[in-house]
């Protein structure tokens, strides 16, 4: 027991607990998770959906009420970083004036590793209706190639 690594055990336990809360089981779709920055942990926020077609990957991040000036999107190789800040309420509001405070606010940063190579120079980001959509065109190497099937007469005749 001399080389027992307590920190590693603790870290594993923490991950197990996170897993239970996050429902990382890819088969179960996380319906109705529409919150932005829940109080529990800010590590995996904003929540994202990843879409793909032949030409590009699309990342849609749930970020209502984020100050557009603070949004910072950057791509390094195949890692996309999204950072920004959601401010509380415009103007100076005394804490006593609040009747309800349910919307989470704060700064956030998230790094997303993309499954394909993307063309860093042609990335576009669009913020509309509280959703941040980042379009990442695939590099030529990552695009699917159509392979023409050659039919040779000889093999066809032997059938």
């Amino acid at each position, binding site marked *: 027991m001399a080389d027992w690594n307590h920190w590693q055990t603790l870290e594993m336990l923490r991950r197990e607990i996170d897993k239970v809360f996050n429902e990382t089981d*890819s088969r179960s*779709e*996380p*319906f*109705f*998770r*529409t*919150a*932005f920055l829940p109080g529990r942990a800010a590590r*995996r926020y904003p*929540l*994202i*959906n*990843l*879409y*793909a*077609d032949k030409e*590009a*990957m*699309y990342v*849609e991040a*749930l*970020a*209502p*009420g*984020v100050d*557009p000036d603070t949004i910072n999107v950057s791509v390094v190789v195949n890692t996309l970083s999204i950072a920004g800040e959601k401010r*509380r*309420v415009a103007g100076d*509001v005394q*804490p*006593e*004036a*609040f*009747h*309800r*405070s*349910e*919307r*989470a606010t704060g700064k956030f940063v998230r790094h997303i590793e993309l*499954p394909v190579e993307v063309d860093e120079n042609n990335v576009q980001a669009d*913020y*509309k*209706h*509280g*959703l941040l*959509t980042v379009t990442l065109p695939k590099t030529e190497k990552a695009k699917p190639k159509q392979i023409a099937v050659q039919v040779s007469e000889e093999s066809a005749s032997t059938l």
Partner: protein
Amino acid sequence: MAEKTVAAPDIQTPNTTESTRHHERYVAPPVDIHETRDGLVVLADLPGVAKEALAVRVDDNVLTIRGHARHAVPGDVTYREYELVNFFRQFELNDKVDQSRITADLKCGVLTLHLLKAEEVKPRQIEVRVG
């Protein structure tokens, strides 16, 4: 700390509206409500809701916020962490709110409602005269 701050209830539980035609799933959007000198300000997070898809109504002292959220991304989903659903929430207003002068503003997925206090309940400064 804020005295009146109420802990956020479990607002992510889906609800269904009972209707004969169709069965839609709704969640209550999280809101911030604060009071100003002139009235109340309600902020609601409605990500994915366009102006055309949002309905704010006042019927018989009940303020209703209803929004339909839409994705606008092409391609097939490869990884999903959230689902955009429809939003629905109601608040009961009292006589202190001037229901004819409610303004709504939708920006960056956040709805801002200004509910103005009725004239008769506004604080009034009374001048004291020295006789």
